[in-house]
């Protein structure tokens, strides 16, 4: 079964938050992946997985309007993506924060709301209250006054999540929020994201390397590999047939007694 070939019905495209039709992405000279068709609905938690360099972040750049499709269309909230959409909260993989950054965490969270404002307006109670609420939503109230430079990887991810949530977005794009986290923190953060998705009804796309910790929470998977994109429910996409079609080589999907997935035959694609 080749999932990439399934056409998304018109009615689904109309009502969905994100809809891609025959979408081909890449840069001037190089196509990263082609002919993607998928629709993501409101309140869905979606994993974007695939090998390094497959074009997962490229998908985010298209959704953020930082990059245009080569062919095909992509719609977010029924419109062509435009840079600066206030309804999208974004947590990139790369941050300029290091151990020398001695700025309070809540300042960064506040910038998620006020960072676009021109002019010098030092004190705003609304910003303060919104930052406080966002920090509360990520269990980060006690981190508010800690310097960013001393926070652990998991604590920083919570702050970035609060920074994204502070403007009350309808769509969250999280680029590798689980990298550099141990299993305990990974699971804590996932529960947090899952809680936010359900409590606020937001849609979240999450780029990850390992699908297994995500499986219990997922509504959909966008699997990008070998220049192609497969989308569907986890049990549809993560099958030997569908991944064999995607990779173009024989792939075996094994499941253990707990439902964990191991993909055999593409180890060299997945290795970091």
């Amino acid at each position: 079964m080749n999932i990439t070939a399934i056409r998304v019905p018109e009615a689904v495209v109309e009502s969905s938050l994100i809809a891609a039709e025959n979408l081909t992405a890449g840069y001037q000279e190089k196509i990263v992946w082609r002919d993607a068709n998928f629709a993501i609905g409101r309140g869905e938690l979606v994993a974007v997985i695939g090998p390094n360099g497959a074009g997962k972040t490229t998908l985010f750049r298209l959704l953020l309007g930082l990059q245009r499709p080569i062919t095909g269309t992509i719609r977010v909230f029924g419109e062509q993506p435009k840079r600066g959409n206030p309804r999208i909260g974004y947590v990139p993989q790369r941050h300029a924060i290091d151990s020398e950054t001695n700025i309070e965490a809540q300042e960064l969270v506040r910038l998620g709301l006020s960072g676009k404002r021109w002019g010098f307006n030092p004190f705003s109670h609304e910003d303060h209250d919104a930052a406080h609420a966002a920090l509360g939503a990520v269990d980060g109230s006690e981190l508010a006054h800690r310097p960013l430079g001393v926070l652990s990887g998991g604590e920083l991810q919570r702050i970035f999540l609060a920074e994204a949530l502070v403007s009350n977005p309808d769509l969250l794009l999280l680029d590798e929020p689980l990298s550099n986290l141990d299993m305990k923190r990974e699971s804590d953060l996932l529960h947090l994201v899952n809680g936010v998705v359900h409590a606020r009804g937001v849609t979240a796309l999450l780029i990850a390397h390992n699908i297994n910790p995500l499986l219990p929470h997922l509504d959909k998977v966008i699997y990008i590999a070998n220049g192609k994109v497969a989308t569907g429910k986890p049990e549809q996409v993560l099958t030997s047939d569908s991944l064999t079609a995607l990779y173009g080589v024989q792939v075996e999907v094994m499941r253990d007694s707990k439902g964990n997935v191991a993909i055999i035959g593409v180890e060299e694609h997945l290795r970091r």
Partner: protein
Amino acid sequence: MTFSINLLSDLQEMLSYAFMQHAFEAGTIVAIIAGITGYFVVLRRSAFTAHAFSEIGFAGAAGAVLLGIPPIAGLLLGSSIGGFAIAALGRRAANRDTQIGIVLAFALGLGLLFISLYSGYATQAYSILFGQILGISNDQVLLTLAAGVAILASVGVIYRPLLFASLDEDVAEAKGLPMLFLGTVFMLLVAVAVSFSIQVTGVLLIFSLIVTPAATAQYLARRPQRAMIVSVAIALGATWSGLFVAYYTPFPVSFFITAFVFGLYLLVRLARLGIKPAKAPIANL
């Protein structure tokens, strides 16, 4: 020129000289703009770029001396060209130490050539390299004031977007902030701040006002606005005390400014080392 215990009368005597008055006026304005722009220089890890502006400015100033026009015109022109070039190459270009180093070495060499062409007269070069705050004229003070007002007004307008772009570049870009515009305005602000700070500290000691006060302030205050205020306070304190002490000694003002900011930086770092296990801030500013 004798020092007495009564500091007020000392100050009164000192300020009865026009050159000391001008030095205090220009020094105050420069300390304010250097303390504020320096905060962003340190936050964006652009210290080396700021130094490059200073040395490209030196070539400009030396060229201006050769042509018989005011050095500040050459300084502004040189450092602004550097600012535009680095901004046009993008934020990541500001971290290209090797290329910037290559350009600044050439700029210093060019400055040296201009100075030697200027009938081998070294006093001008010396004052551009190490500061000439005691030789500032009334017109220069007014020009410095105009630059100071322009810098403060610009920082006031772009403050939050610039802070956002400096702290979380990718999110700021996704949120629709004009990154190239912000980068260019920031580089030009630094170029102008550096050009005027050179009057006080000289090309070679520019870090003592642009980098050290802000770097120290970062450890003392965790909120950007407060850190900027602390940074300005340190730059002001060092400039004023530098002028005061230098008045009673035969040694140059810029040495004392450098020594004061360095001493304070050292003190703050040592104090932080001492309290590190508790992970507490020095002052909860």
